């Protein structure tokens, strides 16, 4: 376990270095920040002072070196647009995003796994086929379409749910639903297929030969073996959600989260915010992958931690 974690840490550091380097140069290749900070009609004198203030006068390699040293010292720079430390800007936005994504993950698991197992076990019933039809529709509906539809019905026509912000639990209903839909639909299909595989296994015949009822067979023998397959797909989903999933939904529901922040930062060439955002997402992704691997070893006794690393 320890050697597994230390291995992961080494990987994390290497990954972060590559990510930081790529982002640092990519952002600087794509446009000039000063034009956005300064606006039009600024005289040459003030403009040059601004450039110096943000450390953009030196050549790019010196800037890069300074940035790396800053990171080691825990100094991530000032936001160009908000003129505050990026960590501070970021911190305000982390909570709402985590709540949104966490809600979506929870909803996905709670709905999709039971629905998928149900669809497999009762695969010949009309009800199971109904579930699969819904899953198919859900998979084919882009989340921004659903989000707009929800807004139209519940905020505009019925006027029972708030359309923007994140003050009460009611604010969470629509964004979380809209964000989860695709993931729920996809996971239902994966879970169903995984369950069908498990249902064909010999050990279920053994379980029935012991005298277990069908319910006991499913809850004791099918569930855990299904989870092994589902877990690896689920891990990919969580990573996708964290790295990019919430951006569109946050804009639609005016959710003051990380996605919204990063979109604005990209448009305004706010380098420090962008750089820190990508860094944070990279750390999150590696952490989630590690957690999924630990969960994997926990669910499947045949997997030894570290065996999948090499």
């Amino acid at each position, binding site marked *: 376990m320890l050697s597994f974690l230390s291995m992961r840490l080494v990987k994390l550091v290497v990954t972060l270095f590559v990510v930081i380097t790529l982002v640092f140069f990519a952002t600087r290749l794509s446009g000039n920040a000063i034009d956005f900070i300064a606006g039009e009609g600024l005289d040459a004198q003030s403009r040059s002072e601004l450039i110096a203030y943000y450390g953009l006068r030196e050549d790019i390699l010196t800037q890069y070196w300074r940035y790396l040293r800053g990171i080691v010292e825990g100094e991530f720079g000032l936001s160009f647009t908000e003129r505050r430390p990026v960590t501070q800007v970021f911190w305000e936005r982390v909570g709402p995003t985590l709540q949104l994504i966490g809600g979506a993950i929870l909803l996905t698991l709670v709905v999709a796994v039971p629905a998928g197992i149900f669809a497999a076990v009762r695969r010949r019933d009309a009800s199971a086929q109904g579930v699969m039809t819904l899953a198919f529709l859900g998979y084919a509906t882009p989340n921004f379409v659903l989000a707009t539809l929800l807004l139209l019905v519940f905020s505009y026509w019925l006027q029972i749910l708030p359309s923007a912000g994140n003050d009460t639990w009611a604010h969470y209903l629509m964004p979380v639903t809209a964000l989860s839909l695709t993931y729920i639909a996809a996971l239902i299909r994966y879970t169903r297929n995984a369950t069908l595989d498990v249902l064909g296994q010999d050990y279920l015949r053994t379980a029935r030969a012991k005298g277990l009822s069908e319910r006991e067979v499913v809850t004791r023998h099918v569930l855990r073996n299904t989870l*092994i397959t589902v877990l690896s797909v689920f891990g990919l989903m969580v990573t996708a959600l964290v790295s990019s999933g919430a951006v569109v939904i946050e804009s639609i529901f005016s959710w003051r989260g990380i996605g919204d922040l990063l979109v604005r930062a990209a448009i305004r060439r706010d380098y420090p915010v962008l750089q820190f955002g990508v860094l944070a997402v990279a750390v999150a992704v590696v952490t989630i992958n590690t957690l999924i691997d630990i969960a994997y070893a926990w669910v499947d006794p045949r997997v030894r931690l570290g065996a999948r690393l090499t």
Partner: protein
Amino acid sequence: MSAPLLEVSDLHVRFGDNEAVKGLDFTLHRNETLALVGESGSGKSATALALLRLIEREGGTITRGRIRLFDEKPHDLTRLSDRQMQAIRGRLVSMVFQEPMTALNPTMTVGRQLTEVLERHASLTRRELRRQAVAALERVQVPRAAERLGQYPHELSGGQRQRVMIAMALATGPRLLIADEPSTALDVTTQAEILALLRRLQAETEMGVLFITHDLGVVAEMADRVLVLKAGRQIESAPARALFTAPQAPYTRRLLDAAPRLGGGSPTPPATSPLLEVSDLVTAYPGRRAHPFAARQPVRAVDGVSLQIGRGETLGLVGESGCGKSSLARSILRLAPIQSGSIRLEGRDVSQLHGRHLLPMRRAAQMIFQDPFASLNPRLPAWKLVTEPALIHGLVSERERRDLAVTLLSEVTLDSAHLDRYPHQFSGGQRQRLCIARALSVRPRLIIADEPVSALDVSIARQVTELLQDIQQRHGLSLLFITHDMAVVERISHRLAVMLGGRIVETGPTAEVLTSPQHDYTRKLIDAVPHTEIPRRVSTAVSPPERYAGAWV
């Protein structure tokens, strides 16, 4: 004879349009073993599943007949509800399946799987559950039983797993045990242990045993009475002794003739120059690391093996699973990582060759694998499959491929009308013939056959073995025939090599090794071969030397 335990009359089982069992009648008594014998597709497993009414779960139905189980009062199993059946399964009637790896849940500890069945049929405290689980494991002679409770199936050996399966089936003290090919997936030596265990447990509990197998050698060891099945029908039913000494039905005689047994004599080695010389071969796979920066500890699968095969000679390589025989085969063909040693094929050292320099060697030596279905690409038709090596080696043009395929199929006695069929449209034996044809397509000097018949029914296995022998003689090929079964190699090998733990422990002319084995392990292998001549169960015990004494004089 004591009172009947199970009475089956006019049993019919159907899978969709296919009637798998067509009217079976039999009775089984307490403390009696009835063997259901037949080849795959004969309906023996369908019968077993029908008895437990598990057949419905597998897509079959009992269309007619009665299954009566006599407990305190008789139950007609065909009329019971699901709930009533659940109370009978695992309590009055238990089942042991063929493949213990897949029949045990890989994500559940042995202890949990054992207590599950106890818990289902009696209300016990946790402590009592644990005590009974340990007792159940001890009864099947699993060493350190208490420790095993926390282990998972993959941490046990095949034989241990099957013991756990048996412990699970017998934990509740059932009246009837259905054993569906319980020893088929095991090594011969382990098989002998498991069979002895079942005999002992039956003597202790006086349960009735319905023993399902395709192996007449096993029947001779186990059965009091035998029921021979073919295509869902009863061909013959007789006491074991009568069946072996005076079989009535022609089909039974054919089965008996096809059964591999020792003592059939073997060909004498031809005196020729060596084609293949392997010396001090070591093959090692990378193992685990102790910590992230440690070097991997290599695992030696082949540990210093030397052997020779002459031109036109067949060498039988025997040993149980995990002894390194497949690794050795792959190393000779340079398909596994060689660490040291040399391999000379037709006088040329091929152990250091790489890339395209390997091509001539791969033309000279071909391989046939155990599972013909897995080693044929399902998306290619037969004519392309069998000619692919020839095409790769530039021996045939795209236009001549079909003609070559016709020749190759006739060589392995397959109908050339089947040229356009795909692998799934062939039977198991036919698929293995395709693999043989494919190996022959490049006119090799050496064929390595890795357990080529162990996935096949006995009579088919016999045909395929004879075909290999025939081809070997016709073309003057050298053949390395790998198997875990002594009886199979005897008929076809000029010489035998016995492998254990990565080393060859004994080698010599086949007849010599079999009559006067030098190594303990060889003796154990020979002794483990079930023998159909004298049923052990119905005759007085005969000690091994006597048993074979007549065979070679």
